[in-house]
C-alpha cells in the first residue's frame, strides 16, 4: 500500500520537475521566437551603432583600425542574424531546447544589451558586449544549460561594466 503511494509521490515529483523545467526553459514556439526576435534586435543595434560611427566621418576617410573594428562588428552582426534565423527554423520545426534560466531573465538581459549597444560611446566597448551575446546565441542553439548560464553571466557583467563607464546624465551634445 505505502509502496504504491510512494511510487505515486515520486511520479508526481517527476511530473512537477518536468513542468518546472518547461516553465523555466526555452521550450515553446513563442519562447524560441522571442529569443530570435531579441537577437535580431541586438543585430539591428550593432548595425545602427557601426553606421553612426561611419557617418560621424561625414564622408571623409575612416582609419584602418576603425575600419577593422567596424568589419569585425559587421561579421558579428551577421553571425547573430544567422543565429536568429536558425532559431526561427527551430521554432518552425519545434525542436525543444532548454534554457536553464527563466525565460524572462534571458529576455531582460538581451534587451538591456541591445539598449547598451545603442548608447555606448566607445565602439570598442560594443565589441566586448557583442562577444557575450554571440556566446549566448551559440549556447542556446546547443540547448545545454551550463554554457548558457556562463554566457548569461558574461553579458550581465558587461552590461554592468558598461553602465559604470557611462555618465549619469547624457552630456550636452558637442557642437
Amino acid at each position: 500500500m505505502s509502496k504504491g503511494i510512494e511510487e505515486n509521490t515520486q511520479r508526481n515529483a517527476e511530473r512537477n520537475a518536468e513542468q518546472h523545467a518547461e516553465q523555466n526553459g526555452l521550450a515553446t514556439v513563442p519562447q524560441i521566437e522571442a529569443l530570435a526576435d531579441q537577437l535580431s534586435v541586438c543585430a539591428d543595434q550593432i548595425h545602427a551603432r557601426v553606421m553612426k560611427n561611419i557617418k560621424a566621418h561625414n564622408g571623409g576617410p575612416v582609419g584602418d583600425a576603425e575600419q577593422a573594428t567596424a568589419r569585425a562588428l559587421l561579421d558579428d552582426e551577421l553571425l547573430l542574424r544567422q543565429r536568429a534565423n536558425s532559431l526561427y527554423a527551430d521554432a518552425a520545426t519545434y525542436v525543444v531546447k532548454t534554457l536553464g534560466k527563466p525565460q524572462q531573465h534571458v529576455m531582460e538581459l538581451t534587451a538591456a544589451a541591445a539598449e547598451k549597444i545603442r548608447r555606448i560611446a566607445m565602439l570598442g566597448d560594443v565589441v566586448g558586449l557583442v562577444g557575450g551575446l554571440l556566446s549566448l546565441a551559440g549556447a542556446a542553439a546547443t540547448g545545454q544549460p551550463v554554457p548558457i548560464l556562463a554566457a548569461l553571466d558574461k553579458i550581465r557583467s558587461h552590461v554592468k561594466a558598461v553602465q559604470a563607464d557611462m555618465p549619469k546624465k547624457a552630456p550636452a551634445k558637442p557642437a
Partner: protein
Amino acid sequence: MTSRHRLPALFALCISVLLGGCATTSISLQEVRDFADQSAKLGGYAELSTRFRDTYAREQLYLPPAAERIGKETDVKRRAVYDDFGSAQKAVVLYMQTLSLLAGDARYDLTDKLDDLGNGIKANVESGLEQKHVLAYTGMTRLLTRVIASGYQGRSVETMVRDGDRDLQTLLEAMLTLTRFYAKTNENEKKTILGIFEVEIPFATRPQDRMLVTLAKVHYLNKSAEYKILDKRYELALQGLTKVSLGHQKLRENLANLRGEEIRNILASYVRDLQAIRTGLSANPN
C-alpha cells in the same frame, strides 16, 4: 389514438421543412461559395514557404565563414520540414473547395485529392508543426474523407462548418505562425545583404575603387528594391490568411442564419478583400 394519428403529419412537416431548407440553401449561399472559392485560391503562402527553404542559397555568397557555417546548418533544418509546410495548406484548400461545392449546386469528383492528403504530416518531433497542428490535420482529413466519400449526401454547409471550424482554425493559425517566421527570416536576410554594402561602400574611398563602388551602389539599389516588393508580399500573405480565418469564424457564428442580410454582407466584404489581396500578390510576382 390521436397521437398515433399525428405522427405521420409531423414527419411530413419535418421533411418539407428539410427539403425547403435544402432548396433555398443551394440558391442563397452564393456568398459562402464565393468566400470558399477565394479562400481556396489564396496565394502567397506556398511561394513564401519555398523562399524560406531556399534562404541559404541566396545568402551564401554574402556570408563570412563563421556565419556561413551556421547558415548551412539552418539550411538542413529548413529543408527537412519543408514538405510539412505544404500539407497544412493542402488540407485547408481541399476543405474550402469542398465547402464551395456544398454551398453550390455543381458536383465535381474530389476523391482523387484525398490520396494527396493521406500521406500528409509526419506526426513526430521532427515535424514542421506542433502536436495540436498534427491533430487538427488528422481531424480535418477525417472530416473531408467522410464528406467527400459520402458524395456530400446528408451533408450541409452548416454541419461542415460546425465540424470543421476548430481544426481549420488551428491549421490557419499554424500557417500564420509559419508565415511570420518566413517574414522574420527574410528580414534578417535583407539586413544582412544590404548591411554589408552600407558598411563597405563608405570605406572604399581610393580613386581606384571608383568602378567597384559604382557597381556596389547599383547592386545595393537593385537589392533594396527587390526586398521592398517582397516585404509587401509577406504582409499580403499574412493579411489573406487572417481574412480567411475571420471569415470562417463569422460563418461559424452565424450558422443559424446563413441567409441573413448581415452575414451575407460581411462575407461579401471578405470576398472583396481577398480578391484585392490576390490582385496585389499577382501584380508583383516574385
